[in-house]
């Protein structure tokens, strides 16, 4: 009976191994993740030994003490000494496990004396990173093209584990993460750091890491957060401290310039074609997950944008809801996520796509009024 089970399992294993799938926990790239890995292996081996003893005794008994071999049953059914032994010995084993577990946990939860702090904010279905001591912040969205998910294109190497703008942190530096959420509960997880912490709306959690090696580390949202829970990866790039500083300075400069540029562009108008082209791109990247590429939404979950009162007649309400979101629903505020031009374009696009054909054009200056109100 066992051989059949083992054959079935053995038939499966080489298959999995042949594609170089990882079958065990990652050791990771931090001191903490290595301690976690060692603890995992220690407890696993202890379980294997106990399992071998218990199942060994069981199989021995099943093989030797069977009626078909004429074995006559013994009559014992109690033995206080044995019973005390198998209560006390497991307890001592547990104490042995608890000691390294406690010291590892205490090390993991010590977020003091960090050199860099990043605020990580989850929202449906993306991450936002903000460097608290610098003027740098941005959203990080899934970069895998829709066509790959829908099987119209071959899947890339980092399918579903790639983002447009990864988080960048320095190596050999204690980095503290403050983790929160704008809507539902998410969970920020990078296996190579052994960091997984829930992002709770209205509360801030802490975690930290100190990465030894430069590299790209990938993870995912770990807490069910709605429809696209499976599509909000975490990508972290660890750079040498000098390289990191250069990158951060560059980002700060670019973000300042972009803000100045945006104010300068307020006076300029875009043509209908420009608005529609930009609007479609913004729509597919930010809105289509809920409202669907055809604008129809999902009945009862995400409202349709086709032929509704707001789309046809309420341009002010339309800009307002995109800029400020709608409380108590999944409709979030886009004013920090999209530029004024992008909001203007996407509103124009929505008012003229899918047969809405209102002919309305919205410009960045129109949107600016709502952002600053």
């Amino acid at each position: 009976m066992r051989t059949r089970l083992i054959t079935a399992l053995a038939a499966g294993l080489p298959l999995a191994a042949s594609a170089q799938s990882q079958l065990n926990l990652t050791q990771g790239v931090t001191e903490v993740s290595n301690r976690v890995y060692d603890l995992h292996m220690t407890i696993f081996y202890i379980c294997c030994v106990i399992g071998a003893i218990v199942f060994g005794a069981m199989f021995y008994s099943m093989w030797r003490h069977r009626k078909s071999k004429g074995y006559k049953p013994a009559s014992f059914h109690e033995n206080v000494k044995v019973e005390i032994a198998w209560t006390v010995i497991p307890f001592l084993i547990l104490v042995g496990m608890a000691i390294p577990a406690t010291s590892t946990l205490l090390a993991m939860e010590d977020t003091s004396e960090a050199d860099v702090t990043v605020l990580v904010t989850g929202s449906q279905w993306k991450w936002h990173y903000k460097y608290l001591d610098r003027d740098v912040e941005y959203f990080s969205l899934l970069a895998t093209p829709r066509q790959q998910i829908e099987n119209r294109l071959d899947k890339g190497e980092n399918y579903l584990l790639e983002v447009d703008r990864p988080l960048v942190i320095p190596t050999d530096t204690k980095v503290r993460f403050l983790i929160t959420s704008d809507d539902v509960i998410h969970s920020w997880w990078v296996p190579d750091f052994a960091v997984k912490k829930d992002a709770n709306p209205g509360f801030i959690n802490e975690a930290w890491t100190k990465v030894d090696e430069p590299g790209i580390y990938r993870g995912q949202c770990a807490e069910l957060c709605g429809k696209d829970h499976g599509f909000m990866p975490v990508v972290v790039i660890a750079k040498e401290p000098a390289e990191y500083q250069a990158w951060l300075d560059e980002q700060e400069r670019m973000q300042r310039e972009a803000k100045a540029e945006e104010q300068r562009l307020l006076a300029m108008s875009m043509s209908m074609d420009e608005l529609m082209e930009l609007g479609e791109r913004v729509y597919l990247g930010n809105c289509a997950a809920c409202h669907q590429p055809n604008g129809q939404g999902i009945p009862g979950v995400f409202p349709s944008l086709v032929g509704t009162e707001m789309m046809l007649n309420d341009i002010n309400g339309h800009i307002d809801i995109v800029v400020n979101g709608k409380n108590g629903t999944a409709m979030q505020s886009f004013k920090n996520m999209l530029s004024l031009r992008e909001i203007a374009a996407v509103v124009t696009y929505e008012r003229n796509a899918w047969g809405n054909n209102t002919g309305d054009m919205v410009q960045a200056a129109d949107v600016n009024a709502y952002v600053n109100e």
Partner: protein
Amino acid sequence: MSTVVGEMDHHDHHHAPTGISRWLFTTNHKDIGSLYLWFSFIMFLVGGSMAMVIRAELFQPGLQLVDPHFFNQMTTVHGLIMVFGAVMPAFTGLANWMIPMMIGAPDMALPRMNNWSFWILPFAFAILLASLFMEGGGPAFGWTFYAPLSTTYSGDSTALFVFSVHIMGISSIMGAINVIVTIMNMRAPGMTYMKMPLFVWTWFITAFLLIAVMPVLAGAVTMVLTDKYFGTSFFDAAGGGDPVMFQHIFWFFGHPEVYIMILPSFGIISAIIPAFSRKKLFGYASMVYATAAIAGLSFLVWAHHMFTTGMPVAAELFFMYCTMLISVPTGVKVFNWVATMWRGSMTFEVPMLFALAFVILFTIGGFSGLMLAITPIDFQYHDTYFVVAHFHYVLVSGAIFSIMAAAYYWLPKWTGHMYDTTLARWHFWTSLISVNVLFFPMHFAGLAGMPRRIPDYAVQFADINQIVSIGGFAFGLSQLIFLWVVIKCVRTGEKAPAKPWEGAEGLEWTVPSPAPYHTFETPPKVD
């Protein structure tokens, strides 16, 4: 015995309704037991077909069959149906059939409430399943319905979900009250507490757990309802609430709930292993104390489901230690079963096969449970397929296998026929192999970093998921053999004697097979 049969005829002639009204109005524990068991099997197939949808979608990376929103509905309703519709009613069905016969009682103590506690269940599940067809679909926030995903961000099916959970809770509480009152008041003379079969003992303790925690679940769903529809802010920080408080309340129910789904299994296994080892159960008293200890500890470990929510480190340590402690009484049980087999005279009929598979596979689930208890490594395992593998090992190859073992053990008593053992062995071996192909590789997927509840995954998980899906389809199909065995056994089969198993002990084997409609109207003497 002839008096018992005579009594039955008397009743049949006078007021036993026939046809559908027999089943609607029945207050007979055996009828109600059968209703529960059939209902739970239907729900097992319904929840199982949802698992098939999940496994079909996960067969390959990419989105093929269902959209992510529907996928989330499938994982949610699969969980709810399997927990509340399949496992719990199956145990209640077994309790109804067996507890009165095991303690020498004529029926359950509160027969009308018994009828009601069953007949509200189909309505609860009709409401839940109907919500899948409404605009926006059914609940899609996981069976754990964490706020605010289940409040602010959920669809309007949430109201139906809440009411159906309320009805399930009421049904469970009534069932539990009935078990407790029956056991405390209706034991035959001489049947002292420490002489009760372990199935009765484990159910007795389970019933107290049910009464303690089902109202907590009712409170949780009610707060979800008022948060969503009546403007309260229990779980909304903007109004002074806390979404993590939801998890504390839910898991204060949820952790005892997992013992509700396994303690009766311990009772079943403790009946079957001695029967086929032809040797008395080793350590009866320590089994009772271990069950009570597990039940007590179950109220002190709930937050081990929540290590990543950002608890203070002192709380993490407390819940880690308490959780690890549970493996002591659980270990005692496993050791006792092995000691029962030791130097017995074993045979391997189908109930024994399932019971032995239970001991091994449940213990594997226990090992992964111990690994999950260690907080620092739980940070890596939490919300991955490692957890999915763990709880399916204890619930499918644990609880469900014990229910199968119980069915094969008592089917001759229920139907009066022996079942087709060749078919039953096919059922066992196909289930055993496929359940491991299904759930064992999930450990690897989880360790390699695959989160749970995702409709699509990174390419390195593709091979593992393909194997898992094949195991899933095979396990699903294997259960149709069980249906076939049971139907065949109900209709035909060799006549079963009163005691078909040589080493079986207990009052249920002193009545004929099939058990007469009314048993023990005159209490038996127990010495």
